[in-house]
């Protein structure tokens, strides 16, 4: 029967395909069907907010002619009565890769990295492909189309999900019957971007998120420059980018903080991206709201962890457990904030998962009308296609759903999904709903039968008393077949019955295990029991645990505020000429150090008795790699265009751990993969603030340079031998080349001549102009001397040598140049160039009058820089006061922050640490760490937090166990694997 129906459809469709007005028809007589179709008596959603009871939808030629309560129905009409049923506009998915061929993954031919582009005549980077048109790789996939239609979609937007600039996409109606001429609604529906490189090219650059960001910025700069006719050569990528300026841009960011990153790029170039989010927007909802961007939000809510093995529980972080708990709130919280967003099946394993996840979002408070808009009118508007799809107003495509009830109800069945006037049956609507409880008498015994599930996909449950009989049911075309088995005797009973149009009961024939046949009647006891109880439990709302700042373990319930505090009777290490003051008070007011002296009055400030304790300025780590999502842009030998400020990670637990070690400020340096690295981020470790809140106001500008084994790739394996430089000789020439070019660039710019805006050159020019400082990774004396000479040649000074393990050999020359030193206390022997590294280095350099700091380059060591500074006393006999300066005022001087922090002096920022003991002693613990007068670490509060974390973890474990018991899906436990960056981490 179904097959025959399909044949009819196929026949019809052939004639329609060839029914284009101006096409000749040699397959039959040319004739047109001018009939109307009217769907009547339905609850009609013309738009998500305009709902008509007993409405009529009149369509013709694949489009809506009229919709509403009173619609004039012409004579030549096929009427379909939908009494009791609902009509909705079909859904629109704005973000898929439907029908677009996936690019072939480029296999490594040699094992050499590839630095240059593979293509010719296009942009210099393979991952930038704005010229790619998805339509050229598009084949309509009717199998996939069916999956989408079954989930309620009538139109999908598609593109090739590959590369940083991905080219244009296609808006397609899921119309199997008509040809491309009808179903392709727009073959340039949008242009697409992401931070992910193409799999089709092995070109190294960019290796990092910050590199991808810089590349996108440069691409837009270059496009503008190209548009002005400045290029001598043809660049088809930039031409396409310029030609498509009016086409809406979609940006797959994929997470809350990447959303903000994408938006920032957009803002710089006046592009209002539609941003594809990550589902965790709720964790920084205010920031997301402030972007004012439009979003596409995936619904792949995390599954609960299977926590039944107590040994595996420890692997899950509280943050990941919370994500399971809180993520279903994302749509509600976004919509409460007025963020405009569409939904998508993107990230779901298959489109059919949409329903359950929307139900979940609704169970967690997301408004149903909003949900419907997010699937219809909103994606349509993002795609500039509101005049065609998303509603059932006159003139729109006849893309609509016929359902048994309200669309998002669990028990509702989608009967039909019409696309461009073509009917697609999902579940036959003529099937009678026979769900309910029955009593069947077979072979003299009576059985209880419960029928539930979808109308056409029933589930059966057969019992006699408390004994369950495994059963199977099949229901179609008004016939029902039910078989059930007695598990003990293995006897099988087979029944087949017809469903009468009116009667509540049904009856038929049963084949008994003996082979004998008899009549049976199923007598209906009660109705209801729609949907399986299991499905309902899946979307049950569980208790939501509160968010914290940041939303990970040890986050604060409220962002901490500054307090006026009087530290009484401490030993105060001023790191100033005043030295170490016994029995001294320090008053903190409005985030600043207000007074240092004896017997100060509190005047309303909270008093802390610091008798027997030591108060110091907060520790400053000149060389840190914590709190960053990437550290090295290793794709080029210079990467001045990248900035760590773009990739600050405010949720890194190492921020909190650093605070617990008395650290208040850090410089996050780029790594040492290339001679010219990237720009630094200098942070105050204000745990709980977002990335912007962590970065210093009016931050001094720094950039990382690097010398030696890392930049010449000595330890990258024997296959990596082609990038310039491979020797220390080459390193010098890299600098000279880049500074020559920067000089030329700057001169051109200053002269007002036209120039190609180059972010890399801009940064290098800042160095030449003394506006940006270099912190240079360095080991052996030859290279140290070399860089000073290069700098002198170009008329600037190197600010800091970091690591500088052979600084002691050229301390006199460094003094002469005027450079500072930031070094390890006692590291050596890990590679060839540290053979002569000695722990006396700091003391020797200090003895020659250099400003010397001790740094960490390590998330663990940074927590005890006080101990590392103390090694200056052991190795080389520094005074304790001088040793202490190496982790406070000296790094502040190196970072040009000494007017603000690094010592205890009236008027300076109240960045302070209260120690239990002499701060250089191995026995000392930080008890309180303050930044700008705000307590970010307190050893007592920490104890409470530990307790709270335990309790919250227990609560979440219990909730997850409940979910598993209720039949919810679970996944095996997974633990975070955080990368602890060092200079050499390539990422």
């Amino acid at each position: 029967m179904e097959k025959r129906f399909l044949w009819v459809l196929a026949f019809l469709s052939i004639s329609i395909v060839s029914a284009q007005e101006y096409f000749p028809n040699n397959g039959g007589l040319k004739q047109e069907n001018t009939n109307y179709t009217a769907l009547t008596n339905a609850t009609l959603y013309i738009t998500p907010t305009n709902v008509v009871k007993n409405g009529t939808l009149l369509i013709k030629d694949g489009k809506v002619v009229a919709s509403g309560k009173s619609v004039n129905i012409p004579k030549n009409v096929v009427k379909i009565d939908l009494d009791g049923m609902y009509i909705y506009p079909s859904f629109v998915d704005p973000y898929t890769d439907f029908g677009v061929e996936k690019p072939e993954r480029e296999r490594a031919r040699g094992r050499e990295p590839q630095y240059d582009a593979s293509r010719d005549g296009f942009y210099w980077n393979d991952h930038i492909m704005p010229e790619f048109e998805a339509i050229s790789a598009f084949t309509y996939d009717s199998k996939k189309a069916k999956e989408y239609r079954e989930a309620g979609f009538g139109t999908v937007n598609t593109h090739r999900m590959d590369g940083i600039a991905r080219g244009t996409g296609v808006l397609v109606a899921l119309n199997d019957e008509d040809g491309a001429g009808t179903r392709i609604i727009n073959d340039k529906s949008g242009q697409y971007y992401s931070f992910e490189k193409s799999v089709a090219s092995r070109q190294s650059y960019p290796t990092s998120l910050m590199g991808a960001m810089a590349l996108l910025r440069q691409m837009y700069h270059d496009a503008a420059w190209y548009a002005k006719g400045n290029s001598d050569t043809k660049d088809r990528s930039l031409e396409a980018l310029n030609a498509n300026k009016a086409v809406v841009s979609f940006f797959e960011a994929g997470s809350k903080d990447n959303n903000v990153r994408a938006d920032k790029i957009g803002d710089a170039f006046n592009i209002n991206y539609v941003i594809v989010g990550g589902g965790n927007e709720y964790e920084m909802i205010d920031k997301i709201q402030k972007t004012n961007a439009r979003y596409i939000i995936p619904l792949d809510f995390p599954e609960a962890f299977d926590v039944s093995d107590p040994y595996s529980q420890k692997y899950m972080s509280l943050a990941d457990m919370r994500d399971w708990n809180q993520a279903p709130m994302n749509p509600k919280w976004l919509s409460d904030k007025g963020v405009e967003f569409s939904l998508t099946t993107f990230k779901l394993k298959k489109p059919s998962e949409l329903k359950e996840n929307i139900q979940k979002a609704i169970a967690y408070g997301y408004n149903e009308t909003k949900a419907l808009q997010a699937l219809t009118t909103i994606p349509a508007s993002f795609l500039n296609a509101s005049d065609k799809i998303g509603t059932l107003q006159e003139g729109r495509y006849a893309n609509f759903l016929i359902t048994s009830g309200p669309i998002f109800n669990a028990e509702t069945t989608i009967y039909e999904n019409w696309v461009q006037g073509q009917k697609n049956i999902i579940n036959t609507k003529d099937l009678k709903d026979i769900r309910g409880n029955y009593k069947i008498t077979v072979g003299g015994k009576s059985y209880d039968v419960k029928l539930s599930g979808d109308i056409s996909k029933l589930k059966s449950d057969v019992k006699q008393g408390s004994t369950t009989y495994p059963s199977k049911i099949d229901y179609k075309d008004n016939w029902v077949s039910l078989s059930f088995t007695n598990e003990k005797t293995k006897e099988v009973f087979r029944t087949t019955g017809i469903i009468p149009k009116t009667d509540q009961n049904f009856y038929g024939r049963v084949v008994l295990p003996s082979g004998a046949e008899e009549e049976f009647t199923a007598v209906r006891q009660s109705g209801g029991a729609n949907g399986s109880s299991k499905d309902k439990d899946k979307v049950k709302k569980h208790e939501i645990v509160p968010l914290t700042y940041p939303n990970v373990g040890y986050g604060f319930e409220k962002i901490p505020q500054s307090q006026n505090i009087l530290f009484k009777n401490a030993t105060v290490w001023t790191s100033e000429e005043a030295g170490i003051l016994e029995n001294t008070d320090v008053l903190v007011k409005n985030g600043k150090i207000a007074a240092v002296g004896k017997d100060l009055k509190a005047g309303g400030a909270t008093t802390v008795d610091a008798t027997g304790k030591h108060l110091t300025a907060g520790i400053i780590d000149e060389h840190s790699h914590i709190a960053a999502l990437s550290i090295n842009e290793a794709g080029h030998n210079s990467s001045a265009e990248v900035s760590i400020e773009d990739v600050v990670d405010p949720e890194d637990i190492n921020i909190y751990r650093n605070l617990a070690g008395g650290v208040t400020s850090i410089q996050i340096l780029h790594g040492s993969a290339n001679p010219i690295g990237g720009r630094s981020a200098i942070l105050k470790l204000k745990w709980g603030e977002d990335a912007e809140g962590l970065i210093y106001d009016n931050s001094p500008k720094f950039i990382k340079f690097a010398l030696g084994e890392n930049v010449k790739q000595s330890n990258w394996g024997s296959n990596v031998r082609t990038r310039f430089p491979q020797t220390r000789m080459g390193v010098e020439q890299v600098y000279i080349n880049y500074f020559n070019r920067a000089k030329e660039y700057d001169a051109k710019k200053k002269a007002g001549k036209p120039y190609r805006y180059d972010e890399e050159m801009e940064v290098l020019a800042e160095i030449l102009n003394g506006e940006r400082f270099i912190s240079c990774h360095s080991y052996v004396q030859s290279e140290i001397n070399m860089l000073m000479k290069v700098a002198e040649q170009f008329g600037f000074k190197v600010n800091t040598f970091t690591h500088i393990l052979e600084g002691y050999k050229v301390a006199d020359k460094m003094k002469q140049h005027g450079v500072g030193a930031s070094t390890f206390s006692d590291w050596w022997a890990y590679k060839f160039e540290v053979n002569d590294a000695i722990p006396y280095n700091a003391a020797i350099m200090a003895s020659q009058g250099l400003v010397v700091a001790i740094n960490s380059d390590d998330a663990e060591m940074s927590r005890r820089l006080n101990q590392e500074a103390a090694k200056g006393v052991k190795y080389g006999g520094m005074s304790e006061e001088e040793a202490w300066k190496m982790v406070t005022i000296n790094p502040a001087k190196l970072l040009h922050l000494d007017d603000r922090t690094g010592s205890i002096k009236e008027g300076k920022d109240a960045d302070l640490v209260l120690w239990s003991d002499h701060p250089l002693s191995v026995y000392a613990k930080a008890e309180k760490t303050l930044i700008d007068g705000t307590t970010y670490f307190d050893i007592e509060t920490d104890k409470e937090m530990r307790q709270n974390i335990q309790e919250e973890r227990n609560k979440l474990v219990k909730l997850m166990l409940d979910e598993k018991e209720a039949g919810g899906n679970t996944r095996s436990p997974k633990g975070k694997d955080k990368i602890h960056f060092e200079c050499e981490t390539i990422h």
Partner: protein
Amino acid sequence: MKNYIYTIILLVFGGTVFAQQTPAPKQTEVITIVGATAHVGNGTYIEKSVIVLEDGKIAAIGTSEVTPRGRVIDAHGKHVYPGLIAPAKSLGLVEVNAVRASNDQDEVGEFIPNVRSLIAYNAESKVVESMRPNGVLLGQVAPQGGTISGTSSIVQFDAWNWEDAAIKVDDGIHLNWPNSFKRGRWWLGEERGYKPNKDYAEDIQKTVDFILSAKAYGNGKAGEQPNESFKAMQGLFEGSKKLYIYANGEKEIIDAVTNTKENGVKHVVIVGGYEAHKIIPFLKKNNIPVLVQQPHALPSREDDDYDMAYKLPKILSESGLLVGLQNESMSNFQTRNLPFYAGHVAGQGLDKEKALQMVTGNNAKILGIDDSYGTLERGKSATLFISEGDALDMRTNILTHAFIDGREISLETHQTELWKRYMEKYSRE
């Protein structure tokens, strides 16, 4: 002023600059150290101590009742400690980590107990030499990698060659226990994160099978075809060798102890033990000592206490377990910080003498060299050092003398020589 200070330092040390690292000759004269606080290494200390060193041994230790003899070292106000012992390190097997040619710590193979560290131990390593000025005088040199990495030996750090250095040959076998969770190799395109290791049971079985085969081999007749790897295992069943099992998770530790003890291994030591505090009764019942990881480590997991690694040795020690400190997961050069690891643990509230015990007496006991080393007791080896102040605190760990088997060793190194050389350069200017 500063230059002046350095000139003094140069004058003091300048005269003693000689070809560093020449092993000291055998003790010939009796030496008595007088007046120092002697930290015995067993949890006690003796104020105003008198220690007599004779023929490489401690001939007497006490206070005023002991009569000084021979050369007297006045150490009033100073501190004497037993030589610190570094377990589970590859000291002398690798010189510069990044230089492959200098790396001899990890041989190819999963089960290679017959691979012996001692014969590759470089007695002239500059890294080993740098241990001594901080008081680290002895170490267990252990092969790395694989499942059974090989056999370690225990050496002292002042010798002409490995044979002279050895104080206990082939003392133990080192086994890296499999993990019940596996790290996704994201750099190879796998998903990042820790996931249950589906092969955990199988991995254990492989290890157990190897142990059983080795045991069966031992039960066989002599004269059968020799199998060196099985042969190397026999000491474990006889009790002459210890099995050092590297494991951190509670499940892994329980599995490791159960599976090895059940199959006839006599002495098991847990190395690592990040979660040992969760199963203290189990460890006590099985009489398992723990060589716990150094405190200078990040918590393993995001939600763990920031000071988990700081306080772990204290928790284990206070529970009554036999606990030593090691830093196997760190670079070899860091081992000179062994005294400061102990200091850091003391900073968490553990008695300082108990903290010291973890790098002296307890390590000696666990490694099975406590008959001669690890404590300042009469009859034991005169392996000890004198520090100006508290040796567990970096500010005051300043050695004036160090002795190994009564031989007064040089405290100079490649590094002190460079220091002096360049201070000399600057003093000329």
